[in-house]
């Protein structure tokens, strides 16, 4: 790592920004962490609430083994240490949407320890971000304040839903790196099937810790592990989009530098992000911080997992994005960057593989990333609802590869597949519309002869300026309605015009 990368220029000198993130990811599971109530999104208010979730007297939590498995799976996906012994603690505080008066979480002994992930920034730059820990905890319910003027309502559907809190090390050094980390994390979770990553449904949200320090101090921190080299951090809560992560870091870094350069100091505080203004503001200061009175939950036994169970989960892990990326480079001859774009979304990667199978990988990648993704972005369509199936796109590419049509005609066919000829086999479209490439040398030679005969001036010109050949190619293509094989036309013209 370049330890003084991404310097921010201030009035009094250069600054570095340091970012760490706590990401809350909802575990994909049918039922909640400690109760049998459904954990599905979109039910009516308080429909997914069991006696345990409502904290009825005498109710007891029972750990959902599937959620534990999901946490282990995620830990393995983050290349992290799985702790075979972990423990649930109670975090005590009063809030109307916290029925028990405490959240069951893992404070001292999390189920997953240190790990590390690779984060690609662009074609050239990849950084490593350390994972500090991952622990399981319960989500709270939701307070609703705008249904009645003087009353608040509580919806406990989320109460008790399993969350993984994934804590990074302070290894991100710019808004770009922070948002790329968040995005990469989401990709990994989706590959693993442990979190759906749907941020608009609250399935994934980040608490973003930002601090600034003088240029060079981060290197001292890395060397010594001594946090005093870093500035005081602020924590901006519940940031729920990749773009907002970027905005929070940009805003906080600028704000903190301004405060410090004006002779002020940064308070260790919790802040909120205002989506409308793009600014952060104080939510509560350190002085108002709760004393959560953590202690081991006496209703639950320590959580123990066998190494064998971990090994079984490891054996069944799907191929993860980094491995897939390297395979795409090796097998399909893609550039690392193209491969990383393709693997960002597992469904897209799967689509690509189906198209590329037995075909030219680069050609397939170009069609998938440029034409198809372009179309999907424009129409805001999910890959799973693509109007052109992978098999159809593959069939189209087959027509290019066997020279039935040119790339240019293929784009026309692609358009038709989306509109008038939707659902039809590209081969049939080409056939029916007579778009088949003309490779019949006789017909092409006749067309070339005709053009040469009709344009003596151009013929004279091309002798001195071989680049003018392009004009002749264009004319022949026009003559043949665009169906001529461009390579064949080129060769015939060169020969006839004596350019070789």
């Amino acid at each position: 790592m370049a330890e003084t990368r991404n310097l921010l220029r201030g009035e009094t000198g250069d600054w570095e920004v340091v970012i760490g993130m706590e990401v809350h990811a909802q575990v994909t599971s049918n039922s909640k962490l400690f109760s049998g109530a459904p954990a599905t999104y979109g039910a009516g208010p308080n429909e997914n609430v069991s006696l345990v979730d409502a904290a009825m007297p005498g109710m007891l939590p029972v750990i959902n083994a599937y959620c534990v498995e999901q946490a282990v799976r995620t830990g393995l996906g983050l290349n992290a240490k799985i702790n075979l012994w972990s423990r649930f603690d109670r975090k005590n505080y009063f809030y109307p949407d916290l029925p028990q008066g405490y959240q069951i979480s893992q404070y001292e002994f999390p189920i997953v320890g240190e790990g590390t992930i690779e984060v690609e920034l662009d074609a050239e730059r990849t950084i490593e971000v350390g994972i500090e820990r991952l622990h399981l905890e319960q989500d709270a319910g939701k307070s609703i304040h705008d249904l009645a003027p003087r009353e608040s309502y509580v919806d406990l559907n989320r109460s008790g839903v399993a969350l993984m809190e994934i804590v990074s090390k302070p290894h991100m050094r710019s808004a770009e790196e922070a948002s790329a980390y968040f995005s990469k994390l989401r990709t990994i979770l989706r590959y693993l099937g442990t979190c759906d990553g749907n941020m608009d449904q609250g399935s994934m949200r980040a608490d973003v810790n930002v601090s600034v320090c003088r240029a060079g101090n981060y290197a001292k921190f890395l060397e010594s592990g001594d946090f005093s080299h870093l500035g005081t951090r602020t924590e901006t809560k519940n940031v729920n989009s990749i773009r907002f992560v970027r905005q929070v870091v940009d805003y906080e870094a600028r704000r903190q530098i301004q405060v410090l350069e004006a002779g002020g100091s940064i308070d260790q505080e919790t802040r909120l992000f205002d989506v409308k203004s793009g600014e952060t503001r104080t939510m509560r200061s350190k002085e108002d911080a709760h004393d959560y009175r953590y202690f081991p939950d006496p209703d639950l036994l320590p959580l123990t997992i066998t190494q064998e169970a971990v090994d079984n989960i490891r054996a069944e892990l799907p191929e993860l994005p980094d491995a897939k990326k390297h395979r795409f480079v090796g097998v399909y001859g893609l550039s690392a960057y193209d491969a990383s774009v393709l693997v960002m979304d597992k469904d897209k990667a799967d689509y690509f593989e189906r198209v590329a199978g037995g075909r030219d990988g680069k050609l397939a990648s170009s069609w998938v990333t440029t034409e198809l993704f372009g179309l999907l972005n424009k129409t805001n369509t999910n890959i799973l609802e693509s109007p052109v199936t992978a098999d159809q796109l593959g069939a189209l590419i087959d027509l290019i590869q066997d020279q039935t049509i040119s790339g240019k005609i293929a784009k026309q066919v692609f358009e038709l597949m989306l509109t008038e000829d939707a659902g039809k086999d590209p081969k049939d479209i080409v056939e029916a519309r007579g778009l088949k490439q003309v490779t019949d040398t006789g017909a092409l030679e006749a067309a070339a002869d005709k053009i040469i005969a009709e344009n003596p001036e151009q013929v004279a010109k091309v002798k001195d300026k071989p680049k003018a050949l392009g004009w002749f190619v264009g004319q022949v293509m026009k003559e043949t309605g665009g169906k001529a094989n461009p390579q064949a036309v080129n060769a015939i013209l060169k020969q006839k015009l004596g350019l070789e």
Partner: protein
Amino acid sequence: MTDLTAKTITELRSGLSAKEFSAEEVTKAYLQSAEDASELNAYVRLTPEHAVEQAKVSDRRIADGSARPLEGIPLGIKDLFCTKGIETNAASKILKDFRPVYESTVTSNLLRDGAVFLGKLNLDEFAMGSSNETSAYGPVINPWRRAGEDTKLSPGGSSGGSSTAVAAHLCAAATATDTGGSIRQPAALTATVGIKPTYGRCSRWGIVAFASSLDQAGPIARDVRDSAIMLTSMAGHDPEDSTSIERPVPDYEKALEGGVKGMKIGIPKEYRLDGMPSEIDELWQKGAKLLEEQGAEIVEVSLPLTKYALPVYYIVAPAEASSNLARYDGVKYGLRVHDDDIHEMYRKTRAEGFGREVQRRLMIGTYVLSAGYYDAYYLRAQKVRKKIANEMASVFQDVDLLLTPSSPSAAFGLGEKSTDPVEMYLNDVFTVTANLAGTPGISLPAGLDGQGLPLGLQLLAPAFGEEQMLRGAYALEEAIGFDAQPSKWWK
């Protein structure tokens, strides 16, 4: 006609199956005696229609030969057990009008076995107390009186309603719970038998929680055999309680016979307290002698950590309680004292809903878990607790049972100890170690003191040693031959 309420479960069982009387008759007799004894304040709620319905079902089952183990036996239920459709308040104002939509596992087990529930029994608020004086329903009165006096005495606590109801024949047996001695001390003070089983033997599901790592349900009954019958039905693994233990439940009644010949029974010398009434010491020695006469080997043992048990208990239990009782916040059920500000609503609700003793313990618990104090109090207490448990486990390497007094005094007058919480806490001095260690204990009547009040002896056993404990208790009960009854001064 004979007094049906004078019969033990064993006697009722045989009388019912011989059709000498019906379950309905027995239930009605108990309902009548319970109503007549309202002065004792043992029940906070009788459910006569419900009880008679259940009794009729029992009579049908007895008639058609499908009787279950506790068919038609009328029980009282400590109001800490949630009972479906029947108000459950834990003797607290904060659970005012709370009607659970679920039945606790232990009471479900009893219903499964055919028991009839007469109603809900009084207790110290949230089971926090040793005299039943912290109840929002007022204290329970011990049926026992000092000879020649009419001073109102405490039946002990927190299961004071259970002990009184059993002693005064207001039910055949009762459910109870024991966090620091709440079954054994009231049993001792009322000449009844109370079992605190091994932690995890009975499910805690559906029992209003006090201190999760210590709470354990058990029976209070007339004699050792009845308590064994009750425990057999109450115990069992429950997947809904992660701390309940998956282990088959023996028929404890079958464990009674066999005697103590060849058993090694320890007398822990640290249980001989300064200032303890000499009568207690004498009964203790007498108990040891009776066991020895029946072939047990009596040895003195040492449990040097005993003196730390009470202080540890009064850190761990309030700490857990402070968290367990956080759910009573006026938001979801029970009492709410309105205020426009949510924090004020919490404050007012909890200030009005919780009694003084509960508030005291919640404050102690909050304090010992606070940042900066956690290590000095809670964490250290847990370490000592572990050492106490180890010490208990190691003494049971050498002996089969321990014999101790159940409580440091006989029944005391209402108000006598309630002004000084520490004095009150000392009631648990002999019982609390078993809760900290998670091991079982039983209290049984040992004799009367000079004032005619009952005193109890306690047998302690290693974890899941209920069978040897019951065998010892049964032998001791036979040898003591205690048969005194309180005079029926109420109505």
